[in-house]
C-alpha cells in the first residue's frame, strides 16, 4: 500500500504545474490564439515574448479565466479548467469544469496587471489584506502581519497607510505584486508588468521578480524587456500571430534558434 502511495506521489511531482494543450481562442473572425501547447514545472519561470497583437496577453487571460477559451485543455496544479475532450477535437465549444473547481483554480493563480489595478480607495495595507480576510478567512491580525512582511520584502516598509495615488508607478506595481502574493498563489502571472512604467522605474520591478524567481516562485511573465526575459527565465516562448513559433531554454531561443521571424523580432529590439 505504502509503495503504491509513494508511486502516486512521485507521479504527481513529475506532473507539470501548468499544462496547456491545443488552446484556441477567437474574437469573432479574429483567431487570436490558434493552437497553443506548452507546459511548465513547479518552481520554473516562463517568459513569453513576441510582437504586440501576437496573443500573449490573451493567452494569460485565458489561463487566468478572465477570458474564455474556445478549444483545447488547460491543467493548473493537477486540476482541469475545462472538461478534457469536451471540445470534440475542436469541433465544439469547450465545457468548463464545475464552479467549485474553477474557483479552486482561480485561487491558485495570481495575476499582476500592466496597469496595477490597485483599489484607489483603500490603503496599501488594506489592498493587500482585503482578499486574505474576505476570501481565505484569515484573521485581520494574520493578514496584517503577512501584509507587513510582504511590504518589507517589496522594499515598501512604512507605506502601509499610504493610498495608491501617493505612490510612484514602481511602488504601486510592487504593492500589486504583494497583493497577489498575499493570496499565496501556486503560479503568479505577470501581464507586461513594466509597460506602464517610466524606464527608470522598470528596474525595481524586474529586481523584485528576480528575487521571487530565486525563491522558486512559479511564474509566467509576458514582457517586452528582452534582456530580462532571457535572464530570469528557465524557459522562453516566442509567439507571433497567435502561434508559438519557438520555445525552449533562454539560450536556445535567444542565441541558437535560426527561426527567421524570431531573429527579425529580436533584431528590431536590438536596434532600440
Amino acid at each position, binding site marked *: 500500500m505504502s509503495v503504491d502511495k509513494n508511486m502516486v506521489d512521485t507521479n504527481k511531482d513529475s506532473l507539470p504545474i501548468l499544462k496547456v494543450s491545443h488552446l484556441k481562442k477567437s474574437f469573432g473572425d479574429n483567431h487570436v490564439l490558434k493552437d497553443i501547447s506548452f507546459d511548465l514545472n513547479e518552481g520554473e519561470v516562463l517568459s513569453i515574448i513576441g510582437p504586440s497583437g501576437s496573443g500573449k496577453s490573451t493567452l494569460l487571460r485565458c489561463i*487566468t*479565466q*478572465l477570458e474564455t477559451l474556445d478549444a483545447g485543455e488547460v491543467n493548473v496544479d493537477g486540476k482541469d479548467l475545462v472538461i478534457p475532450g469536451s471540445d470534440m477535437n475542436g469541433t465544439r465549444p469547450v465545457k468548463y469544469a464545475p464552479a467549485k473547481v474553477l*474557483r479552486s483554480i*482561480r*485561487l491558485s*493563480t*495570481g*495575476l499582476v*496587471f500592466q*496597469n496595477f*489595478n*490597485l*483599489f*484607489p*480607495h483603500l490603503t496599501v495595507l488594506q489592498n493587500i489584506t*482585503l*482578499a486574505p480576510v*474576505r*476570501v*481565505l478567512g484569515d484573521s485581520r491580525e494574520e493578514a496584517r502581519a503577512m501584509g507587513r512582511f510582504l511590504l518589507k520584502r517589496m522594499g515598501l516598509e512604512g507605506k502601509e497607510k499610504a*493610498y*495608491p*495615488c501617493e505612490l510612484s508607478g514602481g511602488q504601486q506595481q510592487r504593492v*500589486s505584486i504583494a*497583493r*497577489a502574493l498575499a*493570496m499565496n498563489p501556486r503560479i503568479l502571472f505577470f501581464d507586461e508588468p513594466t509597460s506602464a512604467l517610466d524606464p527608470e522605474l522598470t528596474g525595481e520591478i524586474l529586481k523584485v521578480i528576480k528575487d521571487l524567481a530565486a525563491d522558486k516562485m512559479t511564474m509566467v511573465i509576458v514582457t517586452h524587456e528582452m534582456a530580462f526575459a532571457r535572464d530570469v527565465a528557465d524557459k522562453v516562448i516566442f509567439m507571433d500571430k497567435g502561434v508559438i513559433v519557438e520555445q525552449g531554454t533562454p539560450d536556445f531561443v535567444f542565441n541558437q534558434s535560426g527561426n527567421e521571424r524570431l531573429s527579425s523580432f529580436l533584431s528590431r529590439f536590438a536596434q532600440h
Partner: protein
Amino acid sequence: MSDLSNLIPILWGGFQTTLAIFGLTLLFSIPLGLIIAVLKMSKYRIVRYPVSFYISVMRGTPLLLQIVAIYFGSYYLNESLGTDIIVDRFPAVIIAFSINYAAYFAEIFRGGIQSIGKGQYEAATMLGLTKTQTFFRIILPQVVKRVVPASANEVITLVKDTSLAQVIAVTELFALAKKQQAVYASIYPLFVAGIFYYVANLVLSCLFSYIERKLDYYK
C-alpha cells in the same frame, strides 16, 4: 408688526412638513435609485427595457402631474375596479417624489458605476472576491465619491421641488406662506419662506462641500 412676529412660528410648522417630504424622499429614492441603476445595466432585455421606460416616463413628464396622478389615480382605480384603496395626501406626495427622484438618482448612479474601469473588476475577480463583495467593497465606495457632485444638484433641487406638494393641498412651507400673504396682504411672508428655502440649501451646500473634501483622500 406684532402680527408678523407670529409669522415665523406659523411658517416653521410648514417648514417641518417640507423637511419631512425632503427627508422621506431621500430615504426612499436613493436606495430605490441604486436598485434601478443596477437593473438598467442588466444583461437581460426583459429587465432593462421596462426599467428604461420607467426612467423615461419619470423624467419626461412633470413631477406636478405625477403627484396629481398618484393622488387622484387611486379614486379612479377604486371606481373602475371596485376596490377601496385610499392614498392620503401626504403618502401620495412621498410616493410621487420617491419614484420620480429615484429615476434621476438611478441615472446618476448608473453613470458612476459605468465610469469604474474594468480593471477594478478584474483585479477583484483574480483575488477571488465574489460579485457581491466586489460591488459593495470595491465598486460602490468609488461610485459614492464620483456621484456626490451630481447628487448634490438633485438634493438641492428637491428642497425647492417640495413646494409642488401644495397642488394636492399638503400644507408645506410655500402653501402656508401664500396663505399668510393673503391674510396679511403683504409680500413679507413669501420673503420669509424664501429665506427658509435659501438657508436650508446653504446648509446642504456646505454639507456637500464637506463630504467632497472628506472623500478627497484618494484620486
